[in-house]
């Protein structure tokens, strides 16, 4: 059965490319337009992994991670940030909130897939 990965990003074009990349590699994808949308969906549906942007309206990536880790259904899933931010302070903040990894855009599709395969192993 295919693994289910959620992608949360307020940019429709980023979601489009992430979804295309994941589906080409055999993953099922759930999209969310911001942190709030993502958290609502994650509280209702089990997924295998979360890819999230950092800067989003309604709820940012850090808030989303904290919400997921506080929840029940997807508490322990790997969460990787997909963001333009590269500051170490932000990475530390993400890690403290419960992120599993950090990818700075622009990423290559093969990088994303390699990271997913590693964290899902």
């Amino acid at each position, binding site marked *: 059965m295919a693994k289910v990965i959620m992608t949360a990003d307020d*940019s429709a074009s980023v979601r489009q490319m992430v979804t295309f990349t994941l589906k080409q590699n055999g993953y099922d994808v759930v999209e969310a337009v911001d942190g709030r949308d993502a958290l609502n969906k994650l509280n209702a549906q089990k997924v295998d992994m979360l890819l999230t942007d950092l800067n989003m309206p309604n709820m940012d990536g850090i808030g989303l991670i904290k919400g997921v880790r506080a929840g029940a259904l997807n508490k322990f899933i790997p969460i990787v940030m997909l963001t333009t931010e590269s500051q170490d302070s932000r990475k530390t903040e993400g890690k403290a909130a419960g992120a599993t990894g950090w990818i700075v855009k622009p990423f*290559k*599709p093969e990088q994303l897939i390699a990271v997913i395969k590693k964290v899902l192993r």
Partner: protein
Amino acid sequence: MVHNRTSTAKVPLKTAIAHGQDVRLSSDHLSRSNTIAKQADIFNTWQPRFSSVLTTLQQLAGATEHDFLKIGSQMQGIYQHSTLLSETARQLVEAASGERIRTLMDRLRQILQEMETYLEKAHKQNLNSCSALEKVGTLLIQVAEPLAGFKKMSKQLYILEVSVKIESTYLGDMGSEFLNLAQDIKKLSHQIKEKANTVHDHRLLLSSVITQSIADIHAAQTYQDTRIKAVINDTRASLSKLEVVNEGFSTLGVAISAVSEENSNNISEIVQSMQFHDIYRQQLEHIIEALEGLMPAFSGMRDKNSLQEDIGQEKLISNIGDVCELQEAQLQFASSELYTAVASIVTNLRNIGTKQKQLGQDLYQKTGGIDKTSNTSFIDDVIQHMSSITNLLTSCASTNKELAGITRKVTAAVDEITGFVADIEDIGHEITQIALNSRIKAACTGTHGASLSALSEEVGQLSNDAVQSADSIIASLTEIQSATGKLSIETDSNEKFLDVAMSGMMVELSEILLILKNVGAELISLLPQLQHKVNSLTAEIEKITSGINVHERAKAMADGVLGNLQQIFRQARELYPAGSAFKEDLRRMAERYTMESERRIHESIAKKHGMELSINQRPKEPNTNSSDSEFGDNVDLF
């Protein structure tokens, strides 16, 4: 501020003028007054420019998403089509060059070899048969002489019979037995004559059949030899050509894999480039945020026309210059990155089209053996030649069967002749017996029977000759029987062997040719389809890429903004060159940056103004997870 003529206190110029006071202006004062007026004029031009800049930037931030989503969707379509194309091409190549075809071609070569062997064997057998038949013909000729002797013998017996009759009449009653004897001799000599004639006729017929058969076999053999050599050479040539095409397809198989890999790389580049839309949007947001921070400054500047506040004015103008210079650099960079990213998308899409087009051309070139007008393929040549060989083999088999039939006929004819000759021999024995009896009888009649005795002796001699001639003929016929018997065994054995070998070969050949025919038909059907799809895809890509102009539009809008920003900050720098406050401004503005590229631009502007400014970054913690480097510098796994 001015001095009141009547006092040394300084009062604001406006206040002095309002009170109608007499004021005294120094030259320095006049100069500064002119500068402030000039600044006010310049400033009045900035506000509309600034509003235009902000409006345009806000439009830009939201203007490109639709285009990028469209490009993304089109890219996915192209990717699917090219993947399907590559898969179809791979199937086609596999059909034409896969392990199965190679095995069939090897087997065809073997069958060709077996056919050659069969034909050589059949040829040799035919030659042997012809030699044997020629020998039989020679032996039959040998039989002619003793056969002719029988006829002569028959005549002599007739004369003797008449003589016996005459002499027996002289004996009166005693001669009556001799008359019977003469009758018997007559009867038997007739029989010899008839049998001899029959044998003679059979012999002639047999000789004729043998002569004709030898001629026919030689003619068939000559024709077959010439044709077979030509057809086998042609077939070998066709097979070699097929092998070359097969090899070409194998090479093409490698090329298809390479094209698939390149397509994947192109798509990977496109996916990476597509993300620059989001990066661009965020860069614009940061620029807008920084420029919006100047709006209060513009409000403040409206009131700053008084000399008392010229220091504040200087500060504001410097600040405006600092911000505009920085944001101009950031926008320049962001605009350039977006343009490059979209240009890269176009290039990569076109690369996919070019590669697929090249693949289609290579496929067509490799299948040069396909005649598009007549819908035949190089495989049809092989099939035709193999069919010709099959026909020749069938012809050989017929010749061989014919030969076996002739051999059987000859054997039967010889047996028949042998029978007749044996009869003649028996008759000869009978005449010998009669002659002996008549001699005895002649001796009993005394001297009157002397002539009859002599005649009897003569008859006896002739009958002995007949027996000997018959023996001679039988000996020849026995030799012929031996030869024909041997030939018959050989031709029968060969016929059976060749029948079995041929039928097995033909069945297998039919199966192989059918498979090849189907492959040929598949190629003829698939190739034009593939070519059509390639043409469609390349046309589609060309249409899509020629319609992508988001980067041109964005650049045009950004160039307008850049022009305004450049004018503003240059004018600001002319009024007040970058001062010590710039460093403070730089530090303050650095806080809003989230991207490494923004920080690099910021540092380069600082350096341009002779300032070393390292944007505050905590030293990177040593990466304890050594495997992260395998994913790239932009990846951290915690």
